[in-house]
């Protein structure tokens, strides 16, 4: 079963929630909708599910127009941020409920409930009620209910937001394997670039109701089509240096100049925005032609095994993503280095004009 959106828009009052989105999701694909709050993720999912109808455009399943069809007539499951379960029913009854409504026989119900409970590691909790469970176990129950009925389309609307980060890590890994052998389409909304990367599959980057880019997740990350797509798909966001090219030389601010090398030789004179990934900034040069920037530390954020260093100078504010744990004083003066051959280049309109050759290469 494939799902196609053809030029779909959704307007409510005077506001456009979804703006002319065209997209085809292949059978068995795992798809991430990535975007900040109010980017249109939930609106788009509700259109896919048939909970809302588009103001314009068509929705096709396996080539068949299902635009006006209600959610009940589509074979769709949904998992939400909040853990939604029937509080007075056992975990078993919760998982079995969609099958009972569909009139599936008792033995078949039992077989499928136990199978999916085992996949989600809650087989020992089947006799309990949801209120006796932890948040993670409650969300597992809700997921089991969504998975048990063999839907054509399963929608996850930021399902891990209310769980702590260790549980999120475990869930992400499990979800990948859970969907490897399914032929339904999975759609998963998140605000977090790291979550999209961890889930893999395909990613659709959404911004202000528009679809900016769709493709294999790693490909979209490494080869963003626009500066906005690059910014939406990186956390901390990709750093931007305003620069200009004149007669074969690039300059940032007044301080940093370098000659265009082979990679960038094709750049015509003009103003550009140069993108530096936070992970490409380093405390020590890794090559002779690395560029240096003198900056002051605003804050070192430490995430267990990594350091996110917020720095600025009179021209620019940047974030560096350093491996390992490093302490810095607030306002400490340091020098950061970055390699020319890893620069992304965007034109005045924000369209990508150069992707580093090393991007995504192993």
């Amino acid at each position, binding site marked *: 079963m494939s799902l196609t959106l053809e030029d779909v828009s959704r307007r409510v009052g005077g506001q456009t929630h979804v703006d002319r989105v065209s997209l085809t999701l292949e059978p068995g694909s795992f798809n991430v909708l990535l975007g900040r709050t109010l980017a249109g993720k939930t609106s788009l999912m509700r259109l896919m599910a048939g909970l809302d109808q588009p103001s314009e455009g068509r929705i096709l399943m396996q080539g068949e127009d299902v635009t006006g069809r209600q959610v009940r007539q589509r074979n769709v499951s949904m998992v939400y941020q909040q853990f939604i379960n029937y509080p007075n029913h056992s975990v078993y009854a919760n998982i079995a409920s969609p099958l009972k409504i569909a009139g599936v026989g008792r033995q078949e119900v039992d077989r499928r409930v136990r199978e999916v409970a085992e996949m989600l590691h809650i087989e020992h909790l089947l006799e309990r009620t949801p209120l006796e469970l*932890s*948040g993670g176990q409650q969300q597992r129950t809700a997921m089991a209910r969504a998975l048990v009925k063999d839907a054509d389309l399963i929608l996850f609307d930021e399902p891990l937001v209310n769980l*702590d*980060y*260790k549980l999120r*890590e475990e869930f992400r890994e499990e979800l*990948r394997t859970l969907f490897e052998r399914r032929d339904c389409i999975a759609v998963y909304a998140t*605000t977090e*670039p*790291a979550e999209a*990367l*961890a889930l*893999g599959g395909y990613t659709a980057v959404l911004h202000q109701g528009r679809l900016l880019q769709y493709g294999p*997740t*790693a490909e979209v*990350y*490494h080869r963003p089509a626009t500066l906005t797509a690059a910014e939406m798909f*990186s956390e901390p966001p990709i750093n931007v240096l305003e620069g200009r090219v004149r007669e074969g030389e690039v300059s940032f601010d007044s301080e940093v100049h370098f000659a265009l090398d082979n990679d960038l030789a094709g750049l015509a004179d003009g103003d550009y925005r140069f993108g530096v*990934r*936070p*992970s490409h900034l380093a405390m020590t040069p890794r090559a002779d032609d690395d560029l240096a920037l003198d900056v002051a530390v*605003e*804050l*070192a*954020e*430490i*995430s*267990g*095994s990594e350091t*996110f260093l*917020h720095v600025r100078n009179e021209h620019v504010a940047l974030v560096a*993503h350093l*491996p*390992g*744990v*490093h*302490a810095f004083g*607030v306002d400490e003066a340091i020098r950061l280095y970055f390699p020319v051959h890893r620069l992304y280049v965007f034109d005045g309109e924000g369209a990508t004009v150069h992707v580093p050759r*090393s991007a*995504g*290469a*192993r």
Partner: protein
Amino acid sequence: MAEITLSGLAHSYQASPAGAADYAIRQLDHVWEQGGAYALLGPSGCGKSTLLNIISGLLAPSEGEVRFDGVAVNDLPPEARNIAQVFQFPVVYDTMTVFDNLAFPLRNVKTPEAKVRERVAEVAEILELTDRLERKARNLSADDKQKVSMGRGLVRDNVSAILFDEPLTVIDPQLKWKLRRKLKEIHRRFAVTMIYVTHDQLEASTFADKIAVMYDGQIVQFGTPRELFERPNHTFVGYFIGSPGMNFIEVHARDGEVVSGAFPLVLDAATARGVAQVCQDSSNVKLGIRPEFVEVCTEAGADSMTAQVLQVQDLGTYAIVHLGLGEISLKARIDEGKPMPGHEAHVRFPAQHLGLYVDEFRREDRR
């Protein structure tokens, strides 16, 4: 301002606790030094909220003593302990101005108005609220409201400590780092003991000079963010800090070899000796190594082991490779631009990055 000592502390929510499992906090001794920036980090249900409530006086511990500067405060009610608290959700009086909100704790104790104005001006300046002092609090954004909550803790100059309970939960993700910076500035300027309670490693490590990691009613490690990363004292710390967490391999000694299941591990001599020695006393022995420190090579070497590559997660700036080493599953981090193995990889465990864990705690004297 005070040094806070927790001595022989234990707490059970049950009237007559039968065993260790009935305790939310188990036999805990700890000192928070005057003026330190601390975090109390742990998963939900680890006992950190219980501990916070015992310090602030909302809860009386079943056993043990809480001392402020050496004086027991068990019998003092919360208001007499001079503890300021900042909660997940900002606590402000919506109908009052920002100024009156900040002045409230001072006027409560009948501070002269001139002194009130002086302190409020000082605190508003560092919190960057000066231009909003006359506004009604209800019109503020969530982050400004949370700053007002913090400010109310800072205006009094006699607070023993400020306790933060997940204070950035409702703050917009793009603004969080600015408030984190603000908190550090505040700590530097006021030199008051601050304890920041969170389940988030980033919140804890960014704010605190030292972190107490809590697990199952106990503080299993008290150390700097770097120590927690490089030398986790307990398997839980290894798991909880870092994404993904530390790899742990169950091992035992067999015929002069170190094996995991049936798989013989290639280790440096000192580590192998250490394992053999501790295995005489315990059947729960593990080796720990972080994914960042597992060396993955495309060519076999004398001290390498052959692993199957089960899965590769491209996380953009680096990849996590899931490896199968016999029955052992192992994660390794490979940075962008480094060669990626095919179906097979050759792995090494550098001696300086291996930790030896006996009954879940790290054993330092293995050499």
